[in-house]
């Protein structure tokens, strides 16, 4: 159980280990792609950790990176094909970032650091926990960015139309939220809050 909950908070891959930042900045403009990306990474980390943990005693150490990449790439291609078949719009929004899951440091890091030295079931749980920790931060960042940057959530208008200045109100969407720097700042603020919570414990 600790394997599952630890990476969500105390050992979060994004906010504590500072891994996988690039995709966290790229796919968090809207909630929908962020959610799909979080799910995709969770599935890939959990299942590739599981498979490689099964194989861990038969892989020669010298070529282990290549074997790991083959397994991870297989799952990424499966996910990519699945998204293209059943969620084409989201797949187009995520574009190259689905393929780039292969290079996501979280996945390789968990395989190297955990799966190659542990039994399959704990490795699966560990991969699941890290994927969920990653997905959670993605969703928080995307929630803030979509709400303040576009006034919507999952594409539905949340901020009332008549608040906007064009409709005689006072409100305007924050254009900076759509731009990549704001993702960096939002992640930074989340790290700040989380660290002050951890320190007080």
């Amino acid at each position, binding site marked *: 159980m600790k394997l599952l909950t630890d990476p969500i908070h105390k050992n979060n891959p994004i906010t504590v280990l500072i891994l996988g930042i690039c995709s966290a900045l790229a796919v968090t403009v809207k909630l929908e792609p962020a959610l799909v990306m979080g799910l995709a990474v969770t599935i890939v980390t959990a299942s590739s950790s599981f498979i490689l943990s099964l194989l861990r005693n038969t892989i020669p150490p010298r070529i282990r990176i290549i074997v790991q990449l083959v397994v991870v790439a297989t799952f990424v291609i499966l996910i990519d094909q699945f998204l293209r078949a059943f969620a084409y719009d989201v797949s187009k929004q995520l574009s190259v970032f689905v393929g780039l899951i292969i290079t996501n440091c979280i996945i390789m890091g968990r395989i190297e650091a955990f799966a190659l030295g542990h039994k399959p079931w704990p490795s699966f749980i560990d991969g699941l926990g890290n994927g969920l920790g990653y997905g959670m931060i993605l969703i928080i960042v995307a929630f803030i960015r979509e709400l303040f940057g576009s006034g919507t959530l999952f594409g539905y208008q949340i901020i009332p139309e008549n608040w906007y*200045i064009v409709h005689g109100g006072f409100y*305007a969407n924050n254009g*900076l939220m759509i*731009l990549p720097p704001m993702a960096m*700042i939002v992640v930074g603020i989340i790290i*700040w809050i989380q660290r002050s919570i951890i320190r007080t414990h």
Partner: protein
Amino acid sequence: MLRNILNKLKPSFEKGARFGFLHSTFEAFESFAFVPNTTTRSGAHVRDCNDLKRVMTVVIIALMPALFFGCWNIGYQHAHTFGVEMTFWGMWIYGFLRVLPIIIVSYVVGLGIEFTAAQLRGHEVNEGFLVTGMLIPLIMPVDVPLWMVGLATAFAVIIGKEIFGGTGMNIFNPALLARAFIFFSYPSHISGDRVWVAGLQSPSAVEVTTGATPLAEAAAGHIDRLPSTADLFFGLIPGSIGETSTLAALIGAVILLYTGVASWKIMCACVAGLLTTGFLMNWLAVNPYMSLPPYYHLLMGGFAFGAVFMATDPVTAAQTETGKWLYGFLIGTLTIFIRLFNEGYPEGMMLAILLMNAFAPLIDHYVVAAHIRRRLKRIPVNV
């Protein structure tokens, strides 16, 4: 009299006393009113009887001409654009009433955050916001919504200053950061030709033709529509509240230089960089804007205001003497580049200063390294 009241109140704000938790708040008010009893003891400071608050007060005084002129100019532009008859004082009061809420919002939000941060960390309140809080309104368009000013101030103080450790630690000029925040977040409220003249955004103002700044006119290629140099110099043009008048900025510059608060090297270098690059562009001149005499760039937009009050900010500028020349020169150069080559951003001063703020430590590093190398050469070899 104030001294007596403060002395009587002081014990109850000491550590452990009834209002001990408000110690830093009390401290701030006391040393604002009087020179503090302690002088700086550590670090490489200039030892002087004046503390940071006196310096800040001088800058505030130097900003007053720009503020007073800015208020009047708002009234003048309003009357001019809408064809309303207004007296001199009528214009001034009209403008003042438009500016006052922006100043109040900027100070309340900024000082509120500063005081809270100081209380939480248990140190003295940083006085840096006194100047920033006055600079922010002066570089805003008059029609900017107040909640945007508040949000931008909060962003600048928290992200731009407090997380770096407060006054004196910040990398970027907080006032410019506030403007940049609005510039990128709400571009339609800080650029274009509708925001610079008070009242142009109301629906009844549709038939009024234009309130574009000279820079926007020039960038659009309407060189013939530029105001006369005298208008540009005195500042009878639409623009941000305090930046239009080159004259007011010059009066401020005289005050700052006479009291020794700002660096004359940075100001001179800014002008030199702007003029040099301007002449170079004249020589290239592929479009009418590029063949505009470079002194126009001195007078248009926020260059004078930025060079006097923003570029010389002692915290974010280069610290070494040679570095100051380089830093200022590059600000002038970049301003021209952004104005002439970037269609989207008619005003280059803000971005040029922010960019050079980021490079100032690097400039200092190389100036010091070059100095060390020069000194090393003087040591005889094989000693």
